[in-house]
């Protein structure tokens, strides 16, 4: 226990010594240590906000993780410039998401207790809604796709395995067979996905 406390202590001190700019540039590189520091640093403020506004710590965790993901994705985009503090950004996103959930549940009574300064985010400036729609559609599509297609597509498009690797892993006789299979899976995924996500227009 003492050892653990010391390690947390070391981490906290580390966090205090890092400037916000350093953290942001590390996060832009996809540094997982930076992600950890940010994650641990700003959670209490969000938790406090959610609890004081009729939420549970599970709600807080869900929303907070979503907000951190949005920050991460945004920072990974080259043209995105963070114009406020990390904390303000995370707090504002969580605030917006919580407002939305309360409205959906019909539990919004016109006022939130606030503890931080925040950006109002009234329009979908961050593309939160859009992301939710397309990722929702993708999740359902992958679900309906079933195995072995799901693993096959993930292995190829996400883990970056070659067709030869995949053939060996999944027991196809050769790479060409695996390739055929992958093609069929992709056609099905495309169909399922665009059925759900019709709004897409170029």
């Amino acid at each position, binding site marked *: 226990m*003492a050892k*653990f*406390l010391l390690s*947390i*202590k070391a981490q*906290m*001190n580390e966090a*205090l*010594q890092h400037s916000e700019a350093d953290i942001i540039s590390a996060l832009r590189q996809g540094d*997982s240590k930076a*992600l*950890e520091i940010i*994650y*641990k640093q700003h*959670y*209490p*403020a969000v*938790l*406090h906000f959610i*609890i004081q506004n*009729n*939420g*549970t*710590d599970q709600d807080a*965790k869900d929303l907070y*993780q979503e907000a*951190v*993901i949005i920050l*991460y*994705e945004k920072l990974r985009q080259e043209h995105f410039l963070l114009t406020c503090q990390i904390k303000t950004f995370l707090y504002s996103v969580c605030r917006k998401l919580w407002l939305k959930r309360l409205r959906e549940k019909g539990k919004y009574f016109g006022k939130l207790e606030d*503890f*931080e300064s925040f950006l109002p985010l009234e329009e979908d400036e961050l593309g939160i809604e859009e*992301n939710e729609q*397309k*990722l929702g*559609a*993708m*999740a359902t599509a*992958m679900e309906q796709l079933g195995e072995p297609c799901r693993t096959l*597509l*993930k292995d190829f*498009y*996400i883990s970056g395995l070659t067709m030869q690797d995949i053939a060996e892993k999944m027991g196809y006789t050769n790479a060409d067979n695996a390739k*055929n299979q992958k*093609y069929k899976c*992709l*056609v099905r*995924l*495309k169909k399922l*996905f*665009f059925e759900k996500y019709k709004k*897409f227009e*170029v």
Partner: protein
Amino acid sequence: MNLQQKYEWIENYLAGKLEGNDLSDFEAKMQNDPAFAQEVEEHKFLLETLAQMAQREQLKAQMNLFHKDLDKHKAWVFYKHPIIQNFWKKHFPTMAVAASVAILTAVGVLWNVKNFNQLEDKQTAYFRSLKKDIDDVKKRQNSLEEKSEKENITQPIDHTATAFVISANGYLLTNYHAVKDADAIFAESRQDSLQRYQVKVFYKDEKTDLAVLKIEDSSFRGFRNLPYALRLEADLGEEVFTLAYPREDMVYGKGEISARTGFEGDSLEYQISVPVNPGNSGAPLFDDKGFLIGVINRKHTLQEGAAFAIKAKYIKKLIDSVMQGQKPEKPILLPLFNNIAWLKRPQQIKALQNYVFELKVHKATDITASK
């Protein structure tokens, strides 16, 4: 070209694998064939969404690990549990009514019983009251004796200083010079409630002018989680504040960090522009967000508005070395989480005030002198 070949062509293009004629053919087809261009866009969109989803899953897994760390440490025990909170919100009016009825009934019954007893007990009333008087005298005497033992009233107070809690299990921090020849020390706080503990010097360090005190008092039950955490470096010009006992009541003082070094360039200290008086020794110095950044220890006698505070970095160093050197039975656990950063100043002070104590220092030499 069949569909499979077309998809492969598109994917190669998206991956940047097309070259030469192949690439120019592809680009020409995109230009001339809007349906094909749309298909390329769709394909790109599909694969990007797939990748994004995978990345999110991976991030979530990573964050769940971080969250376990937080959970383990229970960094937020200070938040009221939502279920209990909601329960109170919902049922408070009902309970208030029920409680008042109960109290009225109880008082009514007692009153009746008292009247009834009075009729019956008139004869013994005289003896009773006498006995009560004697009991009272006894009680008073006992409490006087206890008090004189506990408070050492024979020893006059030599001087006072300020100390603050550094570990919730009963360690305070103050200045070395405030307690160096002390014989008996009492820590008192009169904010939300009166707290008064006998403390002993646990460790003192002349070089840094810091001393760790340990509460050794049977009435001590431990503090609640501390609302402040240490911040090791503070910047020039930052707004800072302190809470101290230069007189019987707690006094708030505000100022700025006016130099990165202290008296005669001492790198151990900051110079601060906080009004400081005797008794401020050992007072905590907080930054705007309520992080502990130092301990006030002295002021410039010739220069107005120049006081000095020992940097938090050296508090940490001292505690680390004590933990390694003395290996105390009860570990000194520096607070890690600051939960007052988002509060306004008066609320911050309310959260902090119960952790700042007035030290009353008695000296052995004084007793011999007075005897």
